[in-house]
């Protein structure tokens, strides 16, 4: 059993009076890809944001490789080697592809260069368009850029929100095959995806969220198929399906 890279313990988040997450605990180990699945508004994005401090939990603790992140601001958390790709891509429209990637550099320059090269290898389209301003990219290219940016800054942990949105299914599988390779070197991925097929195909473990609560969790292979997850979500029975 490896030491967890990221450990979320009993995270509860309120937006004003609205409960967005309720007592959610998730663990990510080095080299592991964990997928959060669930409907819109289930709290997937909120959980990712909580990791880097964009939202502040009202209860719960966040540990990153053995130290607490709770008291740190976003910039300091990111500098520990976390990369984040938000929902909706949020690439900088007035900056070129290269600038969009470079602006995510944190930490040692040489290592960042290696990660940048890695991104170009992963998405040759980005290298070809390196000098094209962000707003001119197609939706799919923007998504690649958003993922790429997270890979550049995430030397240890990569957070991806809806990475498959706008990518062709074949490309998604291809990209995630390589991300698995990248992860196998000791980095880890925590991703949120509505697309259960994608999640099942790429992740090592699945966490099912519904209405802010963790309703099922287990290794991806232990879910017999997406119908099972779909059933959990559709009927909404938090039937304590702790699989695996």
């Amino acid at each position, binding site marked *: 059993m490896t030491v967890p890279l990221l450990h979320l313990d009993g995270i509860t988040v309120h937006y004003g009076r609205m409960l967005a997450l309720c007592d959610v605990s998730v663990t990510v180990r080095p080299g592991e890809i964990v997928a959060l699945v669930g409907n819109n508004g289930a709290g997937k994005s909120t959980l990712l944001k909580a990791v880097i401090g964009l939202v502040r939990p009202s209860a719960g603790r966040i540990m990153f490789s053995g130290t607490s992140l709770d008291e740190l601001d976003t*910039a300091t*958390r990111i500098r520990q080697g976390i990369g*984040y790709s938000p929902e909706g891509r*949020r690439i*900088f429209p*007035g900056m070129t592809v290269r600038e969009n990637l470079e*602006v995510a550099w944190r930490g040692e320059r040489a290592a960042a260069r290696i990660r940048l090269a890695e991104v170009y290898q992963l998405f040759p389209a980005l290298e070809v368009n390196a000098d094209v*301003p962000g707003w001119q990219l197609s939706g799919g290219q923007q998504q690649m850029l958003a993922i790429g940016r997270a890979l550049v800054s995430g030397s240890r942990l990569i957070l991806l929100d809806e990475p498959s949105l706008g990518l062709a299914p074949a490309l998604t599988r291809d990209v995630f095959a390589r991300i698995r390779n990248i992860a196998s070197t000791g980095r880890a991925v925590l991703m949120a995806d509505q697309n259960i097929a994608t999640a099942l195909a790429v992740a090592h473990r699945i966490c099912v969220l519904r209405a802010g609560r963790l309703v099922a969790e287990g290794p991806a292979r232990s879910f017999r198929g997406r119908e099972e997850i779909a059933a959990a979500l559709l009927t909404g029975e938090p039937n304590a399906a702790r699989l695996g």
Partner: protein
Amino acid sequence: MLTLQLLVNGIALGAAYALCALGFVLVLNATGAVNFAQGDMVMAGGFVAIALVSLWPVPGLVLLPAVVLITGLLGLVFSAIGYFPLKSRPPVSVFISTIALGVIFQNVAMVTFGPEPRATPPLLVAGNVDVGGLTVSIQAIAVILIAALLVGGQHVLLMRTRLGQSLRATAQDREMAAALGIRVNLMIALTFALSTALAGVAGLLLANTYFVTPTDGTNYILKAYIAATIGGWGRLHGAIAGAMLIAVFEVMFPALPLLIPVLPVAIHGMFSQTSASIVLYLALLAVLFLRPQGLFGEIAQRRA
């Protein structure tokens, strides 16, 4: 010949306007807020130079670094008082707070320096040079060169440095910039400093030829505002072009009867500094009405 001379003067004036407008747009992009005191920072730059000269009589060029430093620091203070306490309120609050800061700056200058127009020493030396038969003031040339240098320097800073990338990222999407670990509040404070420093230099450059009085700010902010609007809200190069256009027009318009001798004498009275301003504002209204995206703007593009 006269046309060319006026053109040089117009470009010199426009260069100073451009620095002011550039700073205005930088803050606008970074915060979404209008800094109504930007014109007063031009005035402040002029008076800082005058205060420095009274202590240490040297040519204006020598003062330049000190003016940049002092007005830049002023910008940090400005953002701490006028922007950060209000950053989560509607933009109109910042608009009003900068109006208030403008009133304060104006009257501090009034109390300290009095209402009379004051002039800074020339940047290098007074006098004219003969360039291929064209007599041009050394000051105008120096103003153009310094402004060009600063605009270039600003371009290099924004486009070629890590800091510049972070500044731009903050301006384009503050939340995402924060999510990448950029310290956005620091970036915004620096943007204010950069912006006021540019305005301050504009004050230094203008105060020799055009003098400086404590109430000049309103005029300069209006020019910056107009430049930013006709250049396309939020576009740096557009603002520079807009500033040039305004200044050349302002310098040329009153001289039209001299330049076009066929104009009947009866209407010569219509060509004055004042009517130039009237025409300018009417043109602004026309631009707002017909092309809200600015003369040089493209409709679909987001601000960059």
